């Protein structure tokens, strides 16, 4: 029983990342009609916002420690971060330790800007082109972005730990009257963060005038345009918001796995499967499918399950996608007419 609960928690956690990326993908597809293969790269750029902030906060002055030597026998050069000088060593270290949560604020303007530049600078030129062209150009863009990140930060993963206070694990079981369900704090924070972000995006679309216009534009772009509303500008903003959601998902993911340049590609394919299973263009579908596939993937990687069906852990997501596409081609919550002409 404990094992099942643990895997459900793991699944919700994995599903959080899938759902956040798939949500952004669906937003972009629903508004602009573009299949954005660069969306994983946005997730990766978000993660590297956290790395960048960590580096900025750690900018140091060099001092020589005559009492110690480096690997060549020369006096050891010691880097002292400027934040130590400004706030004292303890407070300075605490600021550096909290770089991931701080990066949430740091990344929002950057991701919005990246989103706007990406949409206005490149993707808008491909609105009237076939989906194949859009896929090719956004996929190319993803490769360019990841190579830029690799050129700057190298190919190896960069450790970006959570603040010490949130880094450990605790017995989740005691909350639900059970025992021995040890779960890391940060993963629960990630799940809670994902739920809040998803709720915020839905609330924004549901309860604001801006959101109402966007939803109207998603349903019938032409009519909204004829009413004299500049729908293109709103869609650009939606692209920026989608970029921001992916970026934030990336920032928060950094303590779970050290970020590297290809983390975007690792998530991209799975996120597309999530979108297809959820139903192209359906926001609730993307979220539902994200969590569903996350949980299924977790169950499939249990040793007991692999013992019965070897290799199931590697194919489960695609297997589900095939079954859904065969039995319900428009996805779990897909609307009629979307990509069905």
């Amino acid at each position: 029983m404990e094992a099942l609960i643990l895997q459900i928690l793991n699944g919700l956690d994995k599903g959080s990342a899938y759902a956040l990326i798939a949500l952004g993908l669906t937003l972009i597809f629903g508004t602009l009609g573009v299949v954005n293969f660069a969306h994983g790269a946005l997730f990766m750029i978000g993660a590297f916002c956290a790395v960048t902030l960590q580096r900025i906060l750690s900018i140091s002055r060099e001092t020589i420690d005559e009492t110690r030597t480096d690997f060549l026998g020369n006096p050891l050069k010691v880097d002292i971060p400027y934040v130590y000088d400004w706030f004292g060593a303890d407070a300075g270290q605490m600021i550096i330790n909290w770089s991931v949560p701080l990066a949430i604020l740091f990344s929002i303007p950057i991701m919005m800007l990246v989103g706007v530049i990406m949409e206005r600078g490149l993707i808008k030129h491909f609105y009237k082109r076939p989906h194949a062209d859009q896929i090719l150009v956004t996929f190319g863009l993803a490769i360019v972005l990841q190579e830029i990140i690799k050129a700057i930060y190298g190919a190896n993963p960069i450790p970006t730990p959570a603040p010490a206070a949130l880094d450990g694990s605790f017995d989740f079981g005691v909350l639900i009257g059970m025992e021995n369900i040890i779960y890391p704090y940060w993963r629960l924070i990630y799940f809670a963060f994902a739920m809040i972000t998803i709720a915020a995006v839905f609330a924004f679309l549901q309860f604001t005038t801006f959101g109402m216009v966007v939803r109207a534009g998603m349903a019938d772009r032409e009519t909204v345009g004829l009413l004299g509303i500049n729908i293109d500008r709103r869609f650009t903003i939606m692209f920026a918001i989608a970029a921001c959601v992916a970026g934030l998902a990336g920032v928060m993911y950094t303590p779970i796995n050290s970020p590297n340049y290809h983390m975007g590609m690792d998530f991209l394919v799975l996120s597309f499967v999530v979108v297809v299973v959820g139903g192209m263009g359906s926001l609730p579908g993307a979220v539902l499918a994200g969590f569903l596939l996350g949980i299924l993937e977790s169950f499939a990687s249990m040793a007991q399950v692999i013992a019965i069906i070897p290799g199931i852990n590697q194919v489960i997501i695609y297997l589900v996608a095939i079954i859904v596409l065969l039995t319900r081609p428009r996805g779990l919550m897909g609307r009629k007419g979307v990509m069905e002409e």
Partner: protein
Amino acid sequence: MSKSNVTRRGVLKTGAAAGAGLALPTILTAGSHSGFTNAPTGSTVTLGFNVPQSGPYADEGADELRAYELAVEHLNGGGDGGMINTFSSKTLEGNGILGKKVEYVTGDTQTKSDAARASAKSMIEKDGAVMITGGSSSGVAVAVQALCQEAGIIFMAGLTHSNDTTGKDRKANGFRHFFNSYMSGAALAPVLANAYGKDRKAYHLTADYNWGYTTEEAVVQATEGMGWETVNAVKTPLTQTDFSSYIAPVLQTDADVLVLNHYGGNMINSLTSAVQFGLRDKVVNNKDFQIVVPLYSRLMARGAGANVKGIFGSTNWHWSLTDEGSKAFTKSFGTKYGFPPSQAAHTVYCQTLLYADAVNRAKSFNPCAVAEALEDFEFDGLGNGKTLYRGADHQCFKDVLVVKGKENPTSEFDLLEVVEVTPVAQVMYEPDHPQMGGAEATLGSCNPGA
């Protein structure tokens, strides 16, 4: 009614194309008249450095390339000579190889077998490389080694740890200086039994590819030989990034040791997950839970940050060793590049020197003569103590380092501490050992090509 379309221009075009086609094999095997592929004819000799310059192991590849450049510099008489000064064989005098200045070309393996084969092929056929070396993955090493065997080129493997490279997939033209899975298991098991006791239950997570299998097999056999029990061994997909769903079930078993047969990004992510899930704070069977990483790499340890502290593993070489060879190499590498070399850099530097020395001793670039010079060659002064290049399987036998993640590192390079230098006798095995492909595994015969 038929009509002939033969024209003067058509005949010329066809003739030129046919001529080029017929001449191609000769062009591609330049020097074939000398009896072996790419025999150097001028005053220079070209070596082919095939390393991952893109992909997940690009940083390791970059470090290998630095070491190759350093080795070429030393062979040609530049710099401080590095380990040439400490190498027990004294044929290298800073005048290149057999008096020919050493030049090199590089290829990008991308850590993909097909890309690695293509780049090796191009260096052999287009650039005339007389030897191919490098790589940071066993899949690539096995693939390129087979290609070199067919082409009649010596292959000096880079970082490849799978038993198969000099086990079931050994080749007469291929040589490995790096240690292997069997040696890791044999070196680690006694240290683990000593540190954690003989009554332990181990749970293995294993990367689902060739290297993972041989490492799991080696560690399972060696630790079971010490009295440990293996509770479970689960394969994880190579592309896995989040290992939480593989780590969480470990908590539900009575295992008290987790062995991570993972390398690179897999190792960083699985170790991070294991630490996050509080495995190291757990007490099972009245014993502190422990994690083991059979193959350590400093470059990879850096990605896992503080999570490596106190965790045992093995490594081929470490810059903090205090023998003369290691000190000389660390000094020349560190002076040139500003940071200490990795084990990948060390093994490829050694391979380049070993090749050059073998050519000098054989007085020929002919791969069969070079292979003969390397076979059963005993040497010292290259950082691992007395070493034997065994003729039966072309594997180097030398001491193995058991290391532990350092508790208080003084710099980003100072992540591992050497806890034991396991003597070579303890990691020796017969060439027909079952883990090495058994009696069927043979080198075949040397191929000089052309």
